[in-house]
C-alpha cells in the first residue's frame, strides 16, 4: 500500500536518499556515452517512473547542458512523463487492429468502472488509464497492457476481471 505521505514525497525523488542514489548512478554510468542524454532519460523514466522539472534541472546541471535542451527532449517523446503515474497502468492499444477490434468499447467500459478518462489516474493514485500505440500483438486484438503484461482478446464484459486484481492491489503476475 502507498500511503498519502509516501506518494507526496515520491513526487520529489531527489529528496529521498535512496532514489537520489539511483538517479546519480544512472547519470554517472551514462554521461560519457555518445548520445547519453537519451539513455539517461530512458533509465530515469523506467526506474523512477517519471522525469519532473527538478529532475530535468538536475540532469542538465550534471551534464553541464542548458535545461532547455533536456526539456526539449523530454517533451518530444511521449514515453517520458513529468508527473508520477498511478501504481498500476492500464494501457489501451489504439493500433489499427485493436481499434477496429473494439478498443473504443473497452475505453467506455473502463470509464464506467473507474470514473476516469484515458490519461487520468484514479483519485487514490492506484490506476492510470492510458492510450498507447500498437504493441505488436495485433493477432490478439483488442489488447490492453496491464503494467507490463499484454492481455489479448479482451471483451467489454471480461474487462472487470482484468481490473479486479489491480483494484484489490494484488500483484499482477508478470508474463515474460
Amino acid at each position, binding site marked *: 500500500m502507498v500511503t498519502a505521505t509516501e506518494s507526496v514525497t515520491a513526487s520529489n525523488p531527489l529528496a529521498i536518499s535512496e532514489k537520489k542514489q539511483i538517479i546519480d548512478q544512472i547519470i554517472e554510468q551514462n554521461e560519457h556515452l*555518445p*548520445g*547519453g*542524454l*537519451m*539513455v539517461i*532519460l*530512458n533509465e530515469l*523514466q523506467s526506474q523512477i517512473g517519471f522525469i519532473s522539472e527538478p529532475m530535468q534541472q538536475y540532469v542538465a546541471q550534471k551534464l553541464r547542458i542548458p535545461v532547455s535542451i533536456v526539456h*526539449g*527532449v523530454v517533451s*518530444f*517523446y*511521449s*514515453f*517520458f512523463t513529468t508527473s508520477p503515474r498511478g501504481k498500476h497502468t492500464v494501457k489501451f492499444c*489504439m*493500433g*489499427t*487492429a485493436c*481499434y*477496429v477490434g*473494439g478498443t*473504443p*468499447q473497452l475505453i*467506455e*467500459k473502463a*470509464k*464506467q468502472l473507474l470514473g476516469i478518462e484515458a490519461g487520468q489516474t484514479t483519485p487514490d493514485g492506484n490506476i492510470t488509464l492510458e492510450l*498507447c*500505440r*500498437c*504493441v*505488436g*500483438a*495485433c*493477432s*490478439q*486484438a483488442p489488447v490492453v497492457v496491464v503494467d*507490463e503484461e499484454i492481455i489479448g482478446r479482451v*471483451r*467489454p*464484459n*471480461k474487462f*472487470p*476481471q482484468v481490473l*479486479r*486484481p489491480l483494484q*484489490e492491489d*494484488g500483484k499482477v*503476475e508478470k*508474463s*515474460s
Partner: protein
Amino acid sequence: MAFYRSHVLVSVDPGCLAKGALEVIDALHDELVAQGLVDEVQVLETSRIGDPVQYGPDMMVYPEGVHYANLSVDDIPYLVEEHFLKGRIVEKFRAKEITVADEELGAPKPKEVRIVLRNCGKIDPNNIEDYIAEGGYMALAKALSEMTPEEVIDTVLRSGLAGRGGAGFPTGKKWQFARNSSDPVKYIICNADEGDPGAFMNRRVLESDPHSVIEGMIIAAYAIGAQQGYIYCRAEYPLAVKTLNIGIQQAREFGLLGENILGSGFSFDLEVRQGAGAFVCGEETALMASIEGRRGEPRPRPPFPAVKGLFGKPTNINNVETYAVVPQIIVNGAEWYASMGTENSKGTKTFALAGDVKHTGLIEVPFGITLREIVYDVGGGIKDDKKFKAIQTGGPMGGCIPEQYLDLPVDYKSLASVGSIMGSGGMIVMDEETCMVDIARFFMEFTQDESCGKCVPCRVGTRRILEILTRICEGKGRDGDIETLEELCREISSTSLCGLGQGAPNPVASTLKYFRHEYEAHIYEKRCPAKVCRALITYEIIAGVCTGCTVCARNCPVNAISGERRQTHHIDPDICIRCGICMQVCNFNAIRIN
C-alpha cells in the same frame, strides 16, 4: 436424495477467486433457479482446474467433461440456457490451448516460404549455441575468411535484396555508398523502431532469432568498414531489448563481437538504444538524431546517411528484416535468393496479417504472390464468412486497396501503382462492416498526432483533414468537403519534408478514390453504409429474439437499457452513446443497428 443429471465443478482457486469465481457461482445458482434446473444440476466448488491466469474463472461440466474457461457473470445465462436446458455444448466458452507463439506464427500456412522466420519458435533465442547448431554464424565465418568486403557487397547486390523498412532501396547499393566514403570512422544502424500499427514482424524476429540480425549487422559492418553499430529499438518492445542484450553479450563471449573477430583482424561492437514513443523516429534522419540524444526531428537529405550520418559520420542504416536475410544470402548465394520473387522484387517478405481474416498472424511469402492468395489461401478467408471490402497495406502512410485489385501480384511497384505502399509489412484486412471514412479518420488521427511539427503543411494540413473527416463522420459533412480533402492531400504530399508528411494523405486519397460513395453517403444522405459512425446509427433490441437475460443492461456504461428479467429489453436512444458494448456482450444476437 436428489438425483442430479449434471455436475458442475467450479474452481475456487485463489487465482480464480481474484477473477470473480464467487460471483460466477452466484450467477450460476441464480440462473439455475430461474430456469427451474436447480434440482437437476449440482454445483460444487473445487480446487484448481486449469491455470487460473490463463483460464480462470473456469469450470468442468460432467458427464460431458467439458472445460469452460474465462467465464464472467454475463456468460452464465447463455451457458445455462444452451448447455443445461438445450443440451448443446457452447464452443465459444470452451477452454482453448493458448500459446502466444502459435497464435502469432504457428506452422507454415499454404504458399508460405520461410527464410527470415525460419528459426522463429524453433530455437531458444537466449542460447547462441542453438543458433549456431542451425548453421548460424557460418555466413560470418565465410565472409571474413573467404570474401573481401567488395565481394560481400557484390553478392548482396546480385541477390536483389531491397530494404525491408519500406522504401525498398537496393541494399547492396546503399552499402556501396557507405563503403565509398573515405572517413575512417563509420557507423552501422539497425532500424528496429517498427512503428506502423499492425506491424510486428520485426519484433518477432528480434525476440525469437536475435542472432540472425546481429550476424547480418556484423557482415554489413565488415562490408562497409564500420567499427560500431547501434540497434535502435522502440520502447514498446522491452522483451526484444532484453533478448538483444543477451544475444550481444553471448556473441562477445564467443568472439563474434569485439576485437579481432574470429581472428580476422576485423573489430566491431554493438549496442542497443531505446526509443521513447515517437513514431517519426522510424525515419532514418530522425532516428539518428534520437540516438544522438536529441529531439527526433527529420532533416533534409542530401546529405544522405552514407555520406554524413550518425555523429556526422558515414552511416549505413537498414531494417531488422534486411539484416536478418543477409546471412542466408551469403551462405546460399545470390542466385538462390534472386530465384524467388518477381522481376522487380526478389526474395520473400514477412507480413503481419491482421483484421477480419480467419488466420491472423505472421506470414512470409515470396514477392509476386497475389493479394487474393494472401487473404484467402494464407489467411483462410474472411472471418465469419463475411464479404471482403479492402486490404490496408503500408501502415499510416499506406492506402486501402479494394476488391478489384485482389489479383495484383505483390511487390514494391505494384502496390504503389494502386495508391498504396509496401511499407514495413502490416496488412489489415477489412470486411464489409468497416467504414472507410472512419478508417481514413483513424489514420489521420495517428499521423496528425505523430507529425513532429517541423513542416507547416504536415502539421497544419493533417489537422485540417482530420477536422473535416471528423465532421463527416459526425454527420456534419458539407458540399465541397470532398474537393477540399483532395486539394489538401495533394498539397501535403508535395510540400512535406519527410516520408511521414508525404505519405500521410495516402489513406484519405485512396479511400476517396475507391470508396467515394461512402463519403458521399455520409455527407449527402447522413448515412454510414457500414453502420459504424456513431452519430449516424441507432441500436435496437429485437423483440422475440431477446430472452431478457439482462446482460446488456448491466454492461451499458450509461444505463440506457431497461427491461424486466425474461422480458424484451429496450434501449433509450436519447441516453445511448452508441458504444456498441451491448451488441458485443449479447450472446443471443438480439441487438441490431439501424
